[in-house]
């Protein structure tokens, strides 16, 4: 299933009747369409492909033909959902999202709950909550009040999403990541489902395998009664996915069955967004999961053993850096998940250190226990204290700063440039400093047993690398890579 190649020029339903590739309709629409083809429940949707925005008018509007097609496709959504766009009671509401060929996280706009009707006195708390959310988005993203007419809301939202392709920051992002200007972005219009509808609703994310530890088990979060952006924004506290298994076992089972299907179809670990509305499961997105270096090693070997990918693919999916990271001391990924990050700076001296943060170098020299030395910036006279510190943290400075140079020599974990006032704010607290990532956590965070070269997964990768045909000069083993 690679999708077609012919340009798509019309506003098109994503109903799985045709296979579309990311080049034609953007990554988001192609993924929704593919989930539908797999028979998964996906809220009905249609796409305005990038070609439509390429044919925009001189005033930056869509051609009349496109608006007519949008109206027709909204009609299709109405038929498939049994709701009417613009109705005053229980109307069809839609989300409007961008979807370029290559994902540009955080660069493009998304507008949810489009189509909230004009205010009426007898409306429910649910509709009132949706209107509040829509107002917030219009205020924040479009900087205008919400138009009372739902069709005008849809028009504003679509134009906004297309125009966000041309904002300076989106252009800068494309320059930086060498993303071509053509094809531009698509816009996806999808019927809303509501995780905040009732007690049997909620929203969550599921990783088909644990992206932190690399375990085979799925990992996820579940937010009862929440809407999608509540999870992403961290506005509400999520429950572990096991909570869903207990409260709605049949939904959980359906979710897990689908996750196996999606992983098999994409041949890689997936990060799946889903919503449950009144007990019914809906899939909103799937993409290849970001993961820790250890998880990249473990997942690649496991998937090759399961026959999901070839051994050569497994080798390609592990970077030399992953192995180096795996072999050095690191924090326990499960402990990190539960830990609170209190500061972040530039990683400047490798290693991990835990202790009470002190801003006074003489204090740390004279007490027996190792302390974390925090200084706005280090001075020559701080060197004796630095040599005795569990870690060093500074407010100012980069990787060439005195603290960074000295700590690398002394093999003391170091994080620099955490920002004005950071060390003063942390004085007296026990902190854990990760000199590999630049993160500083509250309290003592447990470390993981360091990976070893005789780890079965590394040994397997090494053996597979040995059997692979090589070009001259290529290192023989992955361990030496």
């Amino acid at each position: 299933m690679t999708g077609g190649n012919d340009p798509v020029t019309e506003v098109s339903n994503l109903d799985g009747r045709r296979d579309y590739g990311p080049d034609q309709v953007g990554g988001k629409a192609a993924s929704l369409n593919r989930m539908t083809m797999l028979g998964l429940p996906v809220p009905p949707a249609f796409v305005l492909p990038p070609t439509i925005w390429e044919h925009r008018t001189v005033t930056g509007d869509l051609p009349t033909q496109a608006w007519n097609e949008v109206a027709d496709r909204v009609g299709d959504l109405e038929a498939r959902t049994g709701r009417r766009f613009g109705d005053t009671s229980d109307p069809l509401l839609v989300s409007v999202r961008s979807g370029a060929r290559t994902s540009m996280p955080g660069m493009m706009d998304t507008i949810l709950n489009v189509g909230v009707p004009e205010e009426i006195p007898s409306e429910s708390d649910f509709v009132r909550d949706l209107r509040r959310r829509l107002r917030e988005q219009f205020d924040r993203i479009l900087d205008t009040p919400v138009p009372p007419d739902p069709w005008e809301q849809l028009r504003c939202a679509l134009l906004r999403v297309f125009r966000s392709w041309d904002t300076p920051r989106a252009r800068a992002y494309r320059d930086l990541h060498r993303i071509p200007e053509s094809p531009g972005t698509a816009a996806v219009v999808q019927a809303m489902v509501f995780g905040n509808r009732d007690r049997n609703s909620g929203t969550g994310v599921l990783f088909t395998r644990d992206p932190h530890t690399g375990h085979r088990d799925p990992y996820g979060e579940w937010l009862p009664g929440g809407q999608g952006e509540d999870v992403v924004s961290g506005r509400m506290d999520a429950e572990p996915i096991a909570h869903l298994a207990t409260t709605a076992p049949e939904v959980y089972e359906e979710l897990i069955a689908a996750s196996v299907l999606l992983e098999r179809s994409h041949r890689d670990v997936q990060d799946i967004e889903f919503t449950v509305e009144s007990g019914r499961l809906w899939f909103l997105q799937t993409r290849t999961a970001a993961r820790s270096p250890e998880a990249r090693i473990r997942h690649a070997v496991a998937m090759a053993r399961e026959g999901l990918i070839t051994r050569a693919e497994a080798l390609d999916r592990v970077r030399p850096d992953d192995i180096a990271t795996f072999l050095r001391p690191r924090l326990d990924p499960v402990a990190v998940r539960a830990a609170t990050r209190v500061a972040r700076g530039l990683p400047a001296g490798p290693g991990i250190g835990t202790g009470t943060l002190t801003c006074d170098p003489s204090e740390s020299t004279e007490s027996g226990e190792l302390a974390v030395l925090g200084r706005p910036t280090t001075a020559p006279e701080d060197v004796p204290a630095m040599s005795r510190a569990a870690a060093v943290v500074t407010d100012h400075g980069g990787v060439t700063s005195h603290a960074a140079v000295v700590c690398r020599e002394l093999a003391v974990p170091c994080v620099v440039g955490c920002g004005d006032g950071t060390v003063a704010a942390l004085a007296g607290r026990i902190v854990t400093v990760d000199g590999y990532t630049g993160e500083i956590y509250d309290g003592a965070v447990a470390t993981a047993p360091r990976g070893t070269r005789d780890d079965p997964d590394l040994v397997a990768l090494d053996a597979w690398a040995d059997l692979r045909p090589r070009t001259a000069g290529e290192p023989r083993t992955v361990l030496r890579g």
Partner: protein
Amino acid sequence: MSTEIMILQTLRLKGSPDLSSLVETLGDPRAELDSTVEDLIARSLCTPTPGGLRLTPNGHARLADLLTEERATSDHSRLNECYARFDKPNLAVKKVITDWQLVDGSRPNDHSDPAYDAVVLDRLVRVDAEFRELLDDIVELVPRLRRYRDRLATAVRHVLDGDHRWVSSPLIDSYHTVWFELHEELITAVGRTRGDEAAAGRAS
């Protein structure tokens, strides 16, 4: 022979040096330094500790007075001009030292590539040579800083002799150690503080 301000300032910059590293830094004969230090201890300006000699609060106050006195008679506009000129070699030295420690700014240099190391050390020698003119101007304005000429030269000589600890080891008078102390001296001489300079991105 070292003056009181030179010894007190060295004690401050070194934190708690022992006598032999004081001899190395100041370049005075041991016997001479012994008696000067005894005098400073008798006046409660410094005190011996298990880690080395340390300034007392009295010593810090005395040093601050001496530095204020020095600033009162120094040529501010020329010193400020020198400090502005220091920016460029300072950035260059810090970059060289970092490249010595890290390859591509991220991977620790395991010194397995002699060609890479040779290029970095060659840059260090060139930056040092170019800096000499400015250092002479600085010493003309603040004569007690003359020892930095010898100390930087000593570090370079050890490096060229193949002892690479003299590039950046913080526990000896390596090039980076001496450079950073000199930077601290300049900040003091122009009457600024390290905090201001760090916030301005110049001295961290």
